[in-house]
């Protein structure tokens, strides 16, 4: 269908610092015992999109990701890994691979998106309206665990900046205004000529930009070439395209015009005008029309482009992994309500549970894990090959692979990374324990982030 898919897998993220290390880049961060990139790739494979470009920041991370992909998706996908230098932003990443893009439309998916919305829906909306950019919007996820204690140190620094302010037209198909992140706290500026053209704009703050975009390739390459300072798709490029939708520069349409003209050599310009007028009159008028018509009624030079929005239904699940809180939420949801995202068992083939050990609903135990006696596990995810002692209580937490937990530990609302050793009677509440850390016995930590110093 002439679509090319680019997955922006990132590499480093300052929000998720203790969880991410050199060995575990962000795309491989496990959610319910699978790397978060798996969900994106699995969905793309199910939609029959087999040729992908995965962009990773940093050479080492690219190697890790490449290795994992070839192991997991041996037959299904044909993936090209592109490594880009770090910290160049999503736009910079696209600039780096711009010469690989050949299809008519590009579908850009963020590698940390966990959702069940089919990418075909965004693509179909894009094609139907012949849009320059189509963004997927989903309702803002409800975050926060059910039994959270005081908010951890990380939560205090969480800005409400992850919400968006979105302006839509009355039939909810076109995107008129989008404000993200830091702009929300200051005043938001609306474009008056857009409001004047549409007449009625609906402004919503309960929708979130899910970072799945469909771009027309010519438009995307044009913007990337012209605007060197744009670093981020979400914060720079998409708002720029939305702002300039009725007054796009002539260059933006020069390419498409040339492509169209090349094909219609046979009919004279008069006939062409008549045909396009018939087609234009027949379709439901959108607010772009008055701006795209020349005074004599010919629709030859279009100076507008369309920005469409696809609003995911409220029953679909869509969350981005860009903070610790989101990480906890996704783990909880994927084992809980949204377990259709997983395709196999909840409990691995061989967990060894001791006597009187209870494992609550919505838990996940990886294979090869062993638990001692009288343990309680509630709403948590435990990775592979863990050795958990007796009288351990794990509530609302994520424990990754190869973790050793001594007897009598209590872990609540925390994330424990791989290869960690917790000695006896450790109490962790809302903590983040980085990889390879050793927590000495009898300590109590509340709301702290423990990480081994990088050598």
């Amino acid at each position: 269908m002439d679509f090319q898919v680019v997955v922006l897998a990132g590499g480093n993220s300052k929000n998720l610092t203790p969880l991410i290390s050199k060995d575990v880049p962000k795309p491989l961060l496990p959610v319910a015992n699978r790397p978060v990139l798996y969900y994106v790739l699995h969905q793309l494979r199910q939609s029959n999109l087999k040729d992908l470009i995965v962009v990773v920041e940093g050479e080492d991370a690219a190697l890790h990701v490449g290795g994992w992909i070839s192991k997991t998706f041996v037959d299904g996908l044909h993936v090209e890994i592109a490594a880009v230098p770090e910290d160049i932003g999503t736009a910079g990443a696209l600039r780096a691979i711009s010469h690989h893009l050949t299809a008519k439309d590009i579908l850009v998916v963020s590698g940390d998106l966990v959702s069940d919305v089919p990418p075909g829906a965004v693509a179909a909306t894009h094609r139907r309206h012949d849009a320059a950019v189509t963004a997927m919007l989903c309702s803002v996820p409800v975050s926060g665990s059910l039994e959270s204690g005081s908010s951890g140190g990380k939560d205090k620094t969480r800005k409400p900046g992850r919400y968006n302010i979105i302006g839509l037209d009355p039939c909810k198909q076109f995107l008129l205004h989008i404000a993200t992140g830091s702009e929300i706290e200051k005043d938001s500026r609306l474009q008056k000529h857009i409001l004047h053209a549409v007449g009625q704009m609906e402004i919503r703050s309960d929708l979130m930009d899910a970072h799945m975009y469909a771009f027309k390739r010519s438009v995307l390459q044009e913007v990337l070439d012209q605007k060197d300072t744009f670093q981020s798709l979400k914060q720079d490029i998409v708002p720029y395209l939305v702002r300039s939708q009725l007054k796009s520069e002539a260059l933006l349409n020069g390419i498409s015009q040339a492509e169209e003209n090349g094909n219609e050599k046979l009919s004279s310009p008069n006939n062409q005008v008549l045909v396009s007028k018939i087609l234009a009159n027949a379709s439901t008028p959108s607010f772009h029309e008055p701006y795209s018509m020349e005074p004599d009624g010919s629709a030859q030079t279009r100076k507008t482009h369309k920005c469409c929005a696809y609003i995911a239904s409220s029953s679909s699940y869509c969350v981005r992994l860009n903070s610790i809180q989101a990480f906890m939420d996704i783990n909880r949801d994927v084992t809980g309500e949204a377990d259709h995202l997983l395709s196999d068992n909840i409990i691995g083939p061989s967990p060894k549970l001791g006597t009187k050990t209870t494992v609550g609903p919505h838990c996940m135990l990886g294979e090869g894990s062993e638990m001692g006696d009288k343990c309680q596990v509630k709403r948590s995810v435990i990775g592979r090959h863990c050795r958990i002692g007796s009288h351990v209580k794990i509530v609302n937490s994520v424990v990754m692979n190869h973790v050793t937990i001594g007897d009598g530990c209590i872990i609540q609302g925390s994330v424990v990374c791989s290869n960690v050793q917790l000695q006896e009677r450790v109490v962790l509440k809302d903590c983040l324990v980085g990889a390879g850390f050793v927590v000495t016995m009898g300590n109590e930590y509340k709301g702290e982030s423990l990480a081994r110093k990088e050598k």
Partner: protein
Amino acid sequence: MSFPILMKPLPLSLKDFNFIAEANKSNAPGGAASSKSVKQPPQKKDGPPVASSVAASERGVDRPVEKERKKDLPPPRMQFDDESRVGKAKRRSLLNQPEARNRVELFRHLPPHKNGSQLPYLESKFFELHEMHPSVYKVGLQYLTGDTSGGNARCIAMLQAFQEAIRDYSTPPEKTLNRDLTSKIGGFVSFLIECRPLSMSMGNAIRFLKSRIARLPLTLSESEAKAALCSDIDRFINEKIVLADKVILRHAATKIRDGDVLLTYGSSCVVEMILLYAHEIGKQFRVVVVDSRPMLEGQKLLRRLVAKGLSCTYTQLNAISYVMHEVTRVFLGASSIFSNGTVYSRVGTAPVAMVAHAFHVPVLVCCEAYKFHERVQLDSICFNELGDPDAVSKVPGRVDVNYLDNLTDKQKENLQLLNLKYDATPSDYISVIVTDYGMIPPTSVPVIVREYRKEYLLI
């Protein structure tokens, strides 16, 4: 129901008409064979309607001309009240067929309306429909959502999509271009039918395209064949639609005098062009635009006319008899014209024509010749298109007018909503039909079908 006669299509009309029409060209046995081949609707079509009969007719270019013409007759249509056929069609279809809720008894044989609920299903399958070309898919989506409507526009959009599909087409090995491309086009057509039933203009265009594909000389290379087909499509659009419209403009503008009050119904692109052209050449006249719910298409026409400076009056169908006394001419558009002179057009055209006839106002129907069809239809029931039934009960912008929302399920069982899209205007109410072959009385339509149809099929 007290219309038993109307419900079953009359056995006489179709056969007799074909017999009469064919009698000039073929001998009696041939005529009898043709009447047998066009059985009544109980014979269903399998797969795309046009493909079966036309593909059968185009097998072998060297068949005698008469036999081909016999098989060009319209195939029997699928009736949706036969459970087994509906089940078969359901299994073969690309879209999920919606469950029929509460359909009016009399119109059960028509395909149920595909409302916007199909859209999510189609969207999720976007990347999985291998055999579909993206531009055909886009056109299908536009039909489904109602973004494109109007006979000419739908036909042009479809032909342009087919042009792109042909350009991107490459013959698989061990297959001939003719047969493979014909079957591919057949696949596209059945997809488009499922999005929205074809209009007559589209049906004729598809027949033209398939006959052109079948008549390609075998000596042509693939790229030459593709280029030839694309130029044929361009020629069809230019000659049959664009040029035809220009000729119609000239003819119809002679019928408009200064001081006229012209009435039009709904939004026909040809009538709009006529009014704008007459205004440009300086004629002084007024326009009355008559509109009707639920589509309210006249509002778009009104907006465009007022933007060009014509003085217009806008009213709805209920007021037609109050407005008609000051009207001097009525201009109507058509989706198709049948061989007995019946005009098949947007629902509401028939009352307009009837009231005009009662007031002795001449009715001019403006229609390109490619929309003519050999079919004969006496009523609006046996062939029509169903629209969204919920649109009838809702008034946009007035959420307080929602009396039907509070009905219980039991009450809803007794209420069936019907939203018809087209109706048939008998030829007695039409004064003249303006086509690109000139201004003809309604009785001359079969002549044009007979004489000029073979011309472009045989080119």
